[in-house]
């Protein structure tokens, strides 16, 4: 009898707790997931996002190849060449994720997706790239082996070879990779300087800084740098001011924020900004996202996490803040844990 009594009491307690939980959820201005997520880049979008504008690292490489050719062939001055962005980020949607979270992508967005997301491909002219004694010598300094960085390398050489071929010239490429060991950055950069190359192509922030440090005369084209001004590489995006200019891989944050408004079909929305608080690049993007939200009159809630263990707590607090959608910038920690983000979003 006593036992039954205890069991009944605990059941009743549980019921009361659950009820109060429901009541609290209902009156806290909170929302229930899952939420449509817009990510900073397409790889993350493939796993957890509904739609985004994607930067193609190959395209960024092609852009850098053009800049290098302008300097080498046409004598363009890097100090007055503005830093480039991906000229034409492609809109991509993910109907699988949209289906899973029960979100309908509006026709107005769907209709703008072009079938081929990576339209620009350049065919390398092999004859313009010679192993030795080309008309020009270009040193490539890449921080590490990494899919995106490899693409900027490939796009650069492809486009440079096309431009060289068109001008009837040849180029010798010295391709060096620091293999993730930053001590090698400056060694490689100084080797290029001692070999007196005509141009250095540096891929990723620290490699670009090492190249900029090693020479004030040889033109340096950087790539895959999110914040070239903050990295001390250029005086301003419009007028770099010295021998260093290049291509920034910043994703079109403002366009991505606008896309959220389009997806939800309303201006009266609250966007949850989810990012890793220790990543400079993420914070840089979040600042741009906030500025765009303010410009558009969207409300926003920031949620910085330390590592992936914080992700569930972050979702709970975003839910309680009553958000309508989530924006995740290009962020290393969240990119690695993006499958987990999707699982938490689905409530699994």
């Amino acid at each position: 009898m006593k036992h039954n009594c205890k069991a009944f009491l605990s059941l009743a307690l549980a019921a009361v707790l659950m009820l109060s939980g429901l009541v609290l959820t209902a009156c806290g201005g909170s929302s229930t997931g899952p939420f449509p997520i817009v990510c900073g880049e397409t790889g993350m979008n493939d796993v957890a996002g509904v739609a985004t504008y994607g930067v193609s690292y190959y395209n960024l490489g092609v852009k850098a190849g053009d800049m290098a050719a302008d300097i080498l062939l046409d004598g363009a001055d890097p100090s007055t060449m503005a830093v480039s962005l991906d000229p034409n980020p492609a809109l991509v949607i993910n109907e699988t994720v949209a289906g899973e979270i029960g979100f309908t992508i509006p026709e107005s967005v769907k209709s703008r997706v072009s079938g081929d997301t990576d339209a620009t491909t350049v065919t390398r002219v092999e004859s313009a790239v010679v192993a030795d004694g080309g008309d020009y010598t270009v040193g490539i300094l890449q921080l590490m082996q990494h899919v995106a960085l490899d693409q900027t390398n490939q796009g650069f050489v492809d486009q440079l070879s096309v431009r060289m071929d068109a001008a009837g010239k040849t180029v010798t490429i010295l391709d060096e990779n620091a293999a993730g060991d930053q001590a090698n950055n400056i060694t490689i950069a100084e080797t290029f300087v001692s070999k007196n190359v005509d141009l250095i192509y540096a891929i990723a922030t620290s490699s670009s800084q090492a190249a900029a440090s090693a020479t004030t005369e040889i033109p340096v084209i950087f790539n895959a740098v999110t914040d070239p001004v903050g990295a001390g590489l250029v005086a301003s995006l419009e007028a770099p001011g010295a021998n260093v200019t290049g291509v920034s891989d910043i994703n079109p944050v403002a366009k991505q924020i606008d896309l959220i408004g389009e997806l939800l079909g309303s201006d009266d929305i609250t966007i949850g900004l989810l990012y890793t608080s220790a990543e400079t690049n993420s914070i840089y993007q979040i600042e741009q996202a906030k500025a765009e939200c303010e410009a558009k009159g969207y409300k926003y809630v920031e949620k910085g996490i330390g590592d992936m263990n914080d992700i569930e707590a972050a979702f709970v607090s975003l839910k309680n803040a009553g958000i309508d959608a989530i924006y995740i910038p290009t962020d290393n920690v969240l990119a690695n844990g993006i499958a987990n983000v999707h699982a938490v979003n689905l409530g699994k």
Partner: protein
Amino acid sequence: MLLSGLCQGFIWAILSLGVYISYRMLDFADLSCEGTITTGASVAAMLIWRGCNPFLAALLAFIAGCLAGTITGLLHTKLKIPPILAGILTMISLYSINIHIMNLATGKEGTSNLSLLNYKDQTVYAAIDRLLGIGKTNASLLLGLVIAAAVIALLYWFFGTEIGCAIRATGTNEKMCRAQGINTDVTKIIGLAASNGFIALSGALLSQYQSYTDVGMGVGSIVIGLASIIIGETLFARAKHFAVRLLGIVVGAVLYRIVVAFVIFSGMPSTDLKLMTAVVVAVALSLPILKNRLALNAKKKNAKKAG
């Protein structure tokens, strides 16, 4: 290429001497190194951003390194955490601390990369160049040489003092040391503080040399330090004098950087950089043994002939 290897070699020599204190003197495999080199670089870069004198910045970086080493020492001696784990704990906590240090420069949260490209005139190298007018490369050579010599002199003197001898004794035979009434906790903490101080100092110079500090720049530094020590010890295997052994480590560090520079200069496929570096170092290290083998074979042949 040789010059570039020399300039960087001297900077890495200071790190190697620091690693030598913990690894050889104390017999303490200290992994804090990968964090403290970045701490030194972060402190120096942050202070330069804040308008501090670069030499003072390097000195304060040294002190910051000493503090980090003290933490590892306390974790090990007071909380009885094994050496490797104590070092790892310091190393991973420094990752966050280094970001906080760099935040102080920019005033923004999450600064993981601090550029000195706009502060090129405010580095120790620029200061020496201004003073003597010898150019950046010569200035870095001169400074590297002077600091490496000073560190060797300092270590030679320090490990001759009573406390220095006690630290060496701790690494050799800790139980015997305790029996002699030496507080080995104190000697370990002092040794680790000094070790990490020098590692941070090399980080401070490195960041000014390469014009940036990056939170990931310490990755692989312990390997460079250990490789330099082993190369130095192998080449100076017969050296009995302590100062010569220390000199051997400087030579080892310089040689290691020259090997890397040579591998890069030779223009082999970029994916093979690490493999080639390892092969060249392995060949260099096996030379003494090969030499002995050859000598031994020659002796045998001579013996046969005589017999």
